[in-house]
């Protein structure tokens, strides 16, 4: 599990537990950078909240002094029937109490706002960033991990924020003041206090080293747990159908135990650190008592000094437990930050143009110039080729699975960029077009018709968020799904169940078709978008397609050649190459691959 060496850029080697010095440095630098960038916008408010805490603590400290005053001064006065000092001191005490209470109450609300703003900022950043990352990233990173980063890792950071950074500042200040007072009072006692910091430093170093590794382990273990959970729940039908429950349960229980173990480990570490801290503090007090007592015996200092020194040194350690808890939460959050900052560091391999060339009225002329595509593992999918698709042409792509049809479609929709050569829309390289304009101009519908939770209307409107109800209905009618939608309990306002459970695969495809219809792009790509349709629906769609494709460039990938009858041109692909390219009529009349495929398909019809 723990491999040494290797880069740490982005999510690379993410599950590695032990890091080399350089890796450690790299990872810490990027986590801190993220942390600072999160804090920057709330800097002023953070300072204000520190001030509020300090003032409220000051009012708190005043309390005992007022009690002392009441007993030392107001009591003798009261015995002499002078009640003024008593009224004064009790009045001041109550005032201090009101001030402390309101300030702390205010602080809690105020700090919550600052924390929530930071959290909101981070949540959005991660969400937007993962959306921006290319498909290539998502395909290898897995959905479970993306979810883990955005749920359990963010929770760890939330806990840090909740544990209160402002109290940390107040605690540190309190310790500094106490230490200064001790310097002025009695140097030897101060020296003992400082000496006690040495074992403390060792203890802290031990804690830090161990928790860092173990917290990193908890992040990895928790992500694994989430991945397994998500995979089970999204594939529950197959799990049940193939009786995978028991095996799943074994795996999950093992992962749960692994997570429990590392989690218990970090908690135990803190369970040693905290009493360790208390022990050091108590030993220091006893030492100060011993050294002070010895000096009292030889008469070099008075009892009052020893008394004060002991009280101060006890107080010095008071905020320590709070600090330790904060530090613990920080360790946990920082390993979450390591992971999140890694994801944020990932750059989309398909980058958006910095200075995009405007594409005001896309016509849909596509040109592939010497385009080649291979995966990062070197496997070539598309051999270098040139291809010109004039605006408005309907092109059918046919060929066996794995011939490269989908890859070609993904290049046009810029899910990937060509590894060599360029691909132009209306003479502009796709890489020079802004995302918004590109997505408006080119839309792809795939076989996998994902429905989001929400109403049918919302799912169709995804193609064009500002569309009117009429437009939505028009789109549904065009692809022949209107009647089905109207048969649902609440028509267009019916909530589609999770993953479109209640909508048949064919209907789902029709809805996603309506989505494309309403988007009204200059270039439309249909990648096996009709595979699950039955023949009547297909007929309906084809009818709609004729209107839809009119005046639009379109690329249709379909195994069923019925869809291809409306194409102006057919490209037959094999092993990453276009081997035939002509009008359907000419190809059918010839003796090539397409002619054979077409005949086989014709024969299958009834």
């Amino acid at each position: 599990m723990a491999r040494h060496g290797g880069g740490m850029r982005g999510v690379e080697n993410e599950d590695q537990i032990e890091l080399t010095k350089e890796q450690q440095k790299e990872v810490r630098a990027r986590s801190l950078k993220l942390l600072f960038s999160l804090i920057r916008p709330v800097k002023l408010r953070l300072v204000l909240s520190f001030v509020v805490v300090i003032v409220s603590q000051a009012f708190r400290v005043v309390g005992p002094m007022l009690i002392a005053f009441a007993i030392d001064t107001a009591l003798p006065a009261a015995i002499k029937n002078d009640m003024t000092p008593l009224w004064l001191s009790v009045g001041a005490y109550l005032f201090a109490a009101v001030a402390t209470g309101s300030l702390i109450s205010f602080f809690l609300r105020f700090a919550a706002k600052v924390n929530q703003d930071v959290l909101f900022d981070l949540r959005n950043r991660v969400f937007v960033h993962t959306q921006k990352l290319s498909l290539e990233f998502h395909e290898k990173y897995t959905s479970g991990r993306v979810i883990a980063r955005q749920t359990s890792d963010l929770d760890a950071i939330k806990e840090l924020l909740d544990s209160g950074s402002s109290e940390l500042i107040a605690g540190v200040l309190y310790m500094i003041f106490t230490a200064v007072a001790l310097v002025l009072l009695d140097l030897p006692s101060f020296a003992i206090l400082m000496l006690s910091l040495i074992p403390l430093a060792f203890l802290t170093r031990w804690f830090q080293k161990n928790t860092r590794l173990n917290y990193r382990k908890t992040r990895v273990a928790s992500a694994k747990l989430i991945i397994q959970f998500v995979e089970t729940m999204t594939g529950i039908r197959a799990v049940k159908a193939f009786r995978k429950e028991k095996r799943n349960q074994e795996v999950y229980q093992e992962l749960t135990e692994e997570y429990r173990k590392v989690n218990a480990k970090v908690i135990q570490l803190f369970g040693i650190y905290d009493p360790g801290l208390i022990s050091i503090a108590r030993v220091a007090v006893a030492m100060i008592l011993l050294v002070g007592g010895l000096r009292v015996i030889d008469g070099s200092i008075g009892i009052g000094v020893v008394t004060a020194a002991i009280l101060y040194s006890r107080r010095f350690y008071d905020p320590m437990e709070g600090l330790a808890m904060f530090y613990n939460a920080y360790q946990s959050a920082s390993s979450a930050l390591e992971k999140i900052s890694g994801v944020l560091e990932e750059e989309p391999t398909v980058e958006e143009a910095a200075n995009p060339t405007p594409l005001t009225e896309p016509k849909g002329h596509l040109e592939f110039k010497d385009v080649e595509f291979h995966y990062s593992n070197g496997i070539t999918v598309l051999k270098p080729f040139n291809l010109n698709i004039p605006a408005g042409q309907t092109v059918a792509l046919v060929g066996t699975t794995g011939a490269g049809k989908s890859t070609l479609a993904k290049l046009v929709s810029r899910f990937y960029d060509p590894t060599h050569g360029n691909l132009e829309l209306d003479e502009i390289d796709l890489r020079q077009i802004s995302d918004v304009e590109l997505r408006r101009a080119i839309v792809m519908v795939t076989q996998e018709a994902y429905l989001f939770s929400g109403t049918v209307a919302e799912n169709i409107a995804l193609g064009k968020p500002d569309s009117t109800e009429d437009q939505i209905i028009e789109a549904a009618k065009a692809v022949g799904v209107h009647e089905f939608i109207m048969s649902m309990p609440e028509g267009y306002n019916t909530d589609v169940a999770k993953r479109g459970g209640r909508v048949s695969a064919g209907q789902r495809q029709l809805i996603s078709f309506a989505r494309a219809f309403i988007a009204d792009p200059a270039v439309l790509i249909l990648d096996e978008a009709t595979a699950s349709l039955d023949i009547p629906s297909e007929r309906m769609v084809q009818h709609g397609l004729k209107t839809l494709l009119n005046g639009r460039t379109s690329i249709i990938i379909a195994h069923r050649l019925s869809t291809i009858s409306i194409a102006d041109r057919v490209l037959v692909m094999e092993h990453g190459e276009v081997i035939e390219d002509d009008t359907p009529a000419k190809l059918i009349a010839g003796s090539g691959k397409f002619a054979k495929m077409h005949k086989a398909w014709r024969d299958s019809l009834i």
Partner: protein
Amino acid sequence: MSKQGTPATLLRIFPYAKSALPRIALGMLAALGGHMLALTIPQVLRDLINGLKNIGTVEALLPLVFIVLGLGLLEAVMVLLRRWLVLTPGTHVEAGMRAKLYAKLQDLPVAFHDKWPSGQLLSRATGDLSLIRRWLSFGLVLLVANGITLIVGFVILIGFNLTLGIIYFAISVPIWVIGFNFEKKYHTTARLSQDQAGDLATSVEQSVHGIRVLKAFGRGDHAAGKFATDALRLRGTELKKAGLIGNLWLYLILIPEFAVGISLFIGIGLVADGQMSVGTLVAFLATTTVLRWPTESIGFLLSMTIDATSAVQRFFEVIDAPVDITDPEHPRAVAVSKGRLEFKDVHFKYPDAAPESPDLLDGINLVLEPGESVALIGVTGCGKTTLTALATRLYEVTGGSITLDGVDIRELTRDDLRSNIAMAFEDATLFSSTVRENVLLGRPDASDADLDQALEIAQAKFAYDLPDGLDTTIGEEGMSLSGGQRQRLALARAVAAAPAVLVLDDPLSALDVDTEAMVEDALRTVLTATTALIVAHRPSTVQLADKVALMQNGKITAFGLHSELIAVNDHYRFVISSLDAAGNQISVEDEVN
């Protein structure tokens, strides 16, 4: 949502926490011991310091130092004990509940999963359970220890001076009223925030699983906007929580301080009147300072307890969900099924369908004789997929029955039933493991030869050419495969299970014409011996089957040979045929005419 109160709800985790309770109780004792030390240490320290005056020799000093050291270390030991006692059992409780939740979720029928977004389930399995663990090993322990400390403290106060003690106590009473009110208000908000966190997890889940659609339409911004709205809503609820907590704290600080202030005022009066000594007043006030933390801690302990309560509620919402598809008490066994599958007057309606709506399946009668294969034909959405899901009890019939070899499938264990009937779904779900494990999911003990044969039949021999051959990890955690490749592996999986009955839901939709033809040829050999129910959209798939069943309006309206139906049945022709009598393709225009 459960109407139970906080204590009653929390008590429900007793069975899960039972084994941890002795150690938790001991942990409470340790915490209490620590608090009691804290109550005495200042006094002891003061006495010791006063005693310093009389010390003249080192021999007299050393015992004092040892007492201070001893007490201090004892305090540390108490903390160590508390943490050591409580923390490990807490993690066991959490892990136990997590495993139980997962097991329950796997047991719950598909209809439950249709209803529950997976983000909500995930947030229950992660955030909620860790909250419960922290409450159990931290919140509960301190709640009890601090509560007892407060009671002891009050007793001590009353022991110092009855009048003053009662006054202090009386002024503190509103804290309990405020705490009670807080509990009521905070409860709803805490629950809301957890539900919203679940919604947010759902948004994340959907944005990841729907990434291709969002990218294809360039709607990443739109999704982000929606996510931001959800996140903003959660932020609002969290702020509302913080507002309530801030409010509570105001009183938690104010009321004890007022009690101290007024006790001080009256106390000095009492001392001035000679009814109380100064020493007692000082001791009284010193004790109130020690009680400060236990009082203030009520704030976060209360909110933590309520957070934990709604987490427990959310946990039990899943645990209490009825599993209405269960194994029979006395299951019957089908040793070697012959594979006669019969649907007898089967009715089905989804549980969340409108009550007045007609049954989706409205009296299905269909018999598949052993070895017979039947193609199920009908327009999209007519219930074909639902019917296939009934055969393996992914959903339960709402009327009528399904029998396998004459035995009602409800009288078989689900395991038994599902090992006799294997399915291939239209959306091919592969799991993150090797090709081998994925394909042999239904029959892990199959030989390599069986595996090879299954791959051969499904035309999935490409798997041998993957980087690590059949040991290549696929699924999400591994190599991404094309839709056609996934579908062929899913088909191979169904075939490899060597079931008595094969249920295939449009199993070849993602295949190209050539591959489809090859798969069909190979499948025919399997289908001669296996009963099969095949949902088909294409004529080529229909021809795999011996017979054809036509579904219409929730019934089987025609059953017979393809050649018979095509000749006499208009609806059948409408559904399956693309050609008119003259052999030309039918278009919608023709139909309209």
